[in-house]
């Protein structure tokens, strides 16, 4: 096809774009592409907005006009050749001699008279698959390590904060014990405090983390694509999970401080001056 510099590409969109397609278009734009001429077939997905490029929407039979090649993207199928005009047949007629590029091998075009078909998707060799698997395993191992270490640090941090909170309240604990508070009550107070802290911390942390990832994604692939590629169900699940994890971790972290507080001899607790 040659370099994309100053060229126009006709893009036939059949559905939602996947990440590889978004990256391909961004790569073309970085290569100096002048214009994207979109057309939509059997798709309700809005035309994605890419920064730094002239975009327009044309009917199906006019999408090849001025375009040096055609690109088929999206999750849906192409319409039948026999559909009533203006359809694919008219498009191919006007685009004779140009290249038709397919991003997905499953988006079969049975026949495109006069066009040369280029399949951009290709089968991976077993070595490549093995290497990708190993890379993925390594990445998962690293991620697990980072998560594990951050959990340990979290527990240590919360335990420290709770110990501070216990020492701060030595006298109050002593007073409550003099008034007849059971050890279980003192323990319970600190568990409640800690789990509240964990819930709030987990929620705030998860929101900040989600925003941070969105910002990183936006800076890497463009902000227009952030919302398109987001999975809100999983995001919600992870938000809930992180709140639960926060509560559970902070309860674990509070075991030691709470037992220090509850097993304190009241006379010692009263004597300390903070």
């Amino acid at each position, binding site marked *: 096809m040659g370099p994309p510099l100053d060229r126009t590409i006709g893009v036939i969109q059949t559905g939602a774009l996947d990440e590889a397609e978004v990256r391909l278009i961004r790569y073309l734009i970085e290569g100096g592409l002048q214009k994207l001429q979109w057309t939509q077939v059997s798709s309700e997905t809005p035309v994605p907005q890419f920064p730094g490029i002239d975009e327009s929407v044309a009917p199906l039979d006019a999408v090849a006009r001025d375009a040096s090649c055609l690109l088929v993207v999206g999750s849906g199928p192409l319409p039948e050749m026999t559909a009533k005009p203006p359809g694919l047949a008219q498009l191919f007629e006007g685009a004779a001699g140009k290249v038709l590029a397919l991003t997905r091998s499953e988006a079969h075009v049975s026949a495109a008279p006069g066009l040369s078909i280029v399949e951009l998707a290709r089968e991976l060799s077993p070595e490549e698959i093995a290497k990708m698997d190993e890379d993925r395993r390594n990445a998962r191992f690293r991620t697990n390590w980072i998560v594990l270490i951050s959990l340990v640090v979290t527990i240590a941090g919360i335990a420290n904060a709770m110990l501070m909170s216990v020492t701060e309240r030595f*006298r*109050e604990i*002593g*007073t*409550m*014990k*003099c*008034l*007849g*508070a*059971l*050890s*279980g*009550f003192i323990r319970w107070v600190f568990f409640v405090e800690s789990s509240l802290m964990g819930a709030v911390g987990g929620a705030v942390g998860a929101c900040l983390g989600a925003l941070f990832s969105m910002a990183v994604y936006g800076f890497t692939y463009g902000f227009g694509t952030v919302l398109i590629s987001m999975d809100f169900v999983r995001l919600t699940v992870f938000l809930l999970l992180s709140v639960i994890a926060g509560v559970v971790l902070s309860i674990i972290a509070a075991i030691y401080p709470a037992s220090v507080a509850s*097993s304190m*001899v*009241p*006379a*010692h607790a*009263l004597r300390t001056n903070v």
Partner: protein
Amino acid sequence: MIVDREKLQALFQAAADEATRCVIRAVNVKKVYRMGSQETHALRGATLDIYRGEYLSIMGPSGSGKTTLFNMIGALQKPTSGKVYIDQVDIAQLDTDELAWLRCHKIGYVFQTFNLIQVMTCLENVTLPMAFAGLDSDAARDKAVRILKLVGLGHRALHKPAELSGG
């Protein structure tokens, strides 16, 4: 661990009904504080009986063991050796929750430095021990309001201790 209140109460009742009216009995109470290798003898065998209805003050120079004795007979600390009986019950035989019950129902402490909980209002400070005693919150509230009115603090019930006069 749940305190069997009825059983404990019966125990104290039976003990109180005995011929002797001795509320507090301390027998040869000793307390030694250890700081590393150094030993400080705070109490060298204090023995005393306090009877029901008695009004008693313990006086002595600083460091003579008043606070230590108070801690022992107030069930705030265990003696190194010796026995303390409150209403004929040896407090060394009570576990922590039974001691908590004892402090809640049998002993009233007045602290030199008030020891009020600064983040709570007056009303909450007064209701706190009632909650420990198992009173439901409405009854505790009514009682606390009555007590605060009795000492002339009814109009300041919702103020924090720091907002009150120190006198």
